[in-house]
């Protein structure tokens, strides 16, 4: 039993490790900038800044735990934004269509990704690299290479609104998506199968799991969430920009990795991903407030990714 508690406490410590570092960074920033960073309004702002990446990261997390990767989400964000804005011109369509269509488009792209990975047997990196390129092209064609402007007030309010005049809708979306993602991953049979497929695909198949369905499922969810993120981004920027969302997939991957999800699949917890997404936002926000040049911010972000994974690997070796 000694090992059980020893092993467990190590695992918990490893899970907590990134949280502790995160809290330490937040504490330092609060101490350095009590007037600006530590203000409640700014802290809410941080969560808001994390929200779009956070939504994408939840989808990315599912894909990576299943043993795959999804590079196409940044392009889906752009395509979804263009579709959303095009359907949100005043007096043309209902708001429901402007909301549903981009999410559905994202889900379709995701399902195609998943089907190619599952049935085509093509490595996920390559499938989604191809669809990333294709979907970017589709977005540019759909928007004729120009941002789509002129959207309704109601559409604008999707991302711009507040609950009780304090909590932005964006934060609520992030929270809801995270909660659903956590439930699916932690509490459902589907979630357990995602871990099983990522942990040992052959064993999962022999155990009677429909590996293809699981893969198509995670890519579809990732695509739909990217579609939703594109919708929200279009609302926030009051336009559908076909060049938006570039490298968003990399930020999502970074959040997932910082949160301790293994790139080889089968391992990872939802709360790690939330911390990862918040961490990236905190660094951006805090360093902005401290007037650190965005060039240096990139270096700091890179170092955080590097060390998060380094400590994770070292920790695993010990445990």
């Amino acid at each position, binding site marked *: *039993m000694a090992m*059980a508690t020893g092993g467990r406490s190590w695992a918990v410590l490893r899970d907590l490790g990134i949280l502790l570092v995160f809290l330490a960074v937040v504490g330092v920033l609060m101490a350095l900038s009590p007037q600006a960073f530590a203000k409640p309004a700014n802290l809410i702002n941080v969560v808001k800044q994390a929200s779009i990446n956070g939504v994408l990261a939840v989808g990315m997390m599912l894909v990576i735990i299943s043993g795959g990767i999804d590079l196409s989400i940044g392009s889906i964000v752009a395509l979804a934004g263009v579709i959303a804005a095009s359907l949100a011109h005043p007096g043309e369509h209902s708001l429901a269509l402007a909301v549903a269509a981009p999410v559905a488009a994202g889900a379709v792209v995701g399902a195609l990704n998943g089907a190619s990975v599952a049935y085509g047997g093509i490595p996920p990196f390559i499938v989604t690299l191809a669809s990333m390129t294709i979907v970017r092209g589709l977005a540019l064609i759909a928007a004729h290479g120009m941002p789509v402007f002129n959207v309704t007030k109601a559409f604008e309010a999707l991302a711009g609104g507040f609950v009780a005049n304090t909590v932005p809708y964006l934060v609520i979306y992030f929270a809801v998506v995270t909660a659903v993602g956590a439930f699916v991953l932690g509490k459902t049979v589907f979630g357990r199968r995602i871990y099983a497929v990522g942990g040992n695909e*052959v064993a999962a198949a*022999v155990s009677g799991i429909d590996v293809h369905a699981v893969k198509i499922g995670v890519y579809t969810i990732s695509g739909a969430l990217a579609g939703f993120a594109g919708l929200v981004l279009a609302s926030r920027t009051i336009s559908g920009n076909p060049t938006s969302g570039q490298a968003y997939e990399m930020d999502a991957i970074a959040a997932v990795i910082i949160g301790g999800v293994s790139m080889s699949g089968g391992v990872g917890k939802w709360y790690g991903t939330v911390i990862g997404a918040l961490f990236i936002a905190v660094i951006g926000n805090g360093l902005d407030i401290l007037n650190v040049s965005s060039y240096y911010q990139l270096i700091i972000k890179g170092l955080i990714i590097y060390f998060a994974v380094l400590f994770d690997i070292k920790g695993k070796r010990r445990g």
Partner: protein
Amino acid sequence: MYPSRRSEIPERRRERVDGVLLEMRGICKSFGGVPVLTDVGLEIRRGEVHALVGENGAGKSTLVKILMGIHPADAGEILVEGRPVAFRNPREAIHGGIAMIHQELSPVLDMEVAENVFLGRELRARRWAWLSVVDRRRMRRECQALLDSLSIPIDPAATMRSLSVAEMQLVEIAKAISHSPKVVVMDEPTSAITEREVEILFAQIAALRARGVSVVYISHKMAEIFRISDRITVLRDGALAGGGEARSLDQDALIRMMVGREIKELFPKEPVEPGEEVLSVKGLSWGRRVREVGFSLRRGEILGIAGLVGAGRSETVEALFGVRRASAGQVRVGGVPRRIRSPRDAIARGIALITEDRKLQGLNLKGTVEQNISLVALGKLFRDGVIRRRTERAVADEYMRRLRIKAFSRSALVASLSGGNQQKVVLAKWLLAEPEIIILDEPTRGIDVGAKRDIYLLMGELVRQGKAIVLVSSEIPELMGLSDRILVMAGGRITGELQRPEFSQERIMRFASQVHGG
């Protein structure tokens, strides 16, 4: 260079009178606060075959890993030819004259045989040596010479991936021998190979011994241990439990030392009256590896399938289970014709397959004991798709108790369990799905006597409950001990069927080595 060096005693005089080549003394090791080895000693004489035995988890593998520099010891010393050594990694151990054949093979699958044999010490082209250009042709040539000298019929240019497990094992042995070591450590070298290859291996061991090379031989197979070893050391629960000259020991004494209790009979076979037919297979084929296999299986029956490696036994059961898509054949389950195109179909018909390779096909090594146990039955346990942890925990606890799975807790990673306990986890996950027909493919490979017996007892219990079992095994005593009937396969076909009174090792081997015209 230094005076102290020059005053070293010459090589020859350092050897002790009793011919001790390698000595490990007072070795202690614990992982995460749990002692795995306490004050263990091992003494290997020049040119002897020294068997290291014990149940899984007794610490044999840890001991040899310390020797190889894979783990550092917490305390104790290692002497090679009387000189203290401390290898920090396997490379240093190999340079120090100690080679090891690991239980888990680690070939680079996409490289060819010769490249694997020379991995890490690639031969360089003489002309281009300064550029470190690999001389593939010379590697192949020398590899061929090596394999020829060991009479191993494998093409050095074949990729590892194209070889069977047994052939990979032989390559691994050739690789170890090619280092011209003083000591070769073999960790369960026969766990994946059949009789014929075992003979090749034993011939190699005899040749090594004749050259004065010592062999540390880790195995669970009693017959082998007594056949080839000069001396035996027994470990139990991380401590020395006995040992001595092989001649002065017998199987019962050895088992007693290993398990610390008496095991009455290894194969507890109880007669069960067979019931109605639950499975009938006709003309089952899968490419050229499985050809028109047919058999029937009744409730309460254990049907053994014997054969050499490559006879098509695993392929047959995998085709039956839908892991491989059968190219022809009819399957009737409970008298009803069924098409089985995937493991899901098979599971839905109440069939379970405990696969041959638990790490590749049986377990999610990144998951916990509990997650692995519940995996197959998840859909059945939680019909609404939502997992209730309390139910899952209760089920895991129940099966851990029933199968006597030794783990620190149900949330321990399966990767941390011993082979026997891992195999029990695989069994648990299938039993939880409550199958009627249970196919076991090499269920006791590489696991210790105690765990083996637990599995045999469980099989007895299952057939008493009216389940039917198909047992594929390369261990003929196991098949003869447990089966009601034995089918023998060769070249993808069934070449013979024996009823229990007709069982004999010779008959089985004769059918197994039967050659077909095609």
